[in-house]
């Protein structure tokens, strides 16, 4: 089964530092997402990306966050100046079309710890 891959699997960073989380979505998928899950809480939508631009974002996705698809394969989430409350598991996901079962597939997550 095709996979969404994410790096790093775990990152510890100091408050105020910039963090970039990387994702390689499933090839030929068209929609890309970032979700996050704070420990003990539900999975929350951050942002969706289609056709090289943000198609939707949540209230959580403020000016400290940005996404980019710098080349044909990577999809990155940047947190400009991390806060303690950004500590969470960040999931990348991608969605194909009807030929892909119209299903969102998730990566294994990047666990971010802000200290």
């Amino acid at each position, binding site marked *: 089964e095709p996979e969404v891959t994410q790096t790093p699997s775990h990152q510890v960073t100091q408050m105020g530092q910039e963090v970039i989380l990387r994702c390689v979505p499933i090839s030929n998928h068209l929609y890309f997402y970032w*979700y996050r899950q704070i420990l003990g809480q539900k999975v929350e939508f951050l942002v969706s990306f289609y056709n090289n631009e943000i198609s939707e974002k949540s209230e959580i996705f403020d000016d400290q966050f940005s996404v980019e698809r710098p080349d044909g394969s990577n999809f990155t989430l940047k947190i400009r100046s991390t806060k303690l409350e950004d500590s969470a598991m960040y999931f990348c996901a991608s969605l194909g079309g009807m030929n892909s079962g119209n299903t969102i597939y*998730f990566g294994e997550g990047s666990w971010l710890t802000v200290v």
Partner: protein
Amino acid sequence: AQSVSQHNHHVILSEAASLELGCNYSYGGTVNLFWYVQYPGQHLQLLLKYFSGDPLVKGIKGFEAEFIKSKFSFNLRKPSVQWSDTAEYFCAVREGGNKLTFGTGTQLKVEL
């Protein structure tokens, strides 16, 4: 805005017991419904999905779910759970756009 409710936050069962996890959503229009499972230390994996047609859908590992439109529900069931089913289960809804809205999750522990 769409909301998804999972009323059981923690469930503990013995092996071979039957399982039913509740999921209700708020949107009244056409929805796609999903159950995802997250085993300890792993990513979200799709268990099953409903788009249209037969409201009783079968997924992997013996799970099934029934869509009841009149009750806005999509409950997950398994007749006989195993220890390896210990995981967190998330119901999710897609309402026409392309994002998923998740429920709060149900932590299932199956005891030997």
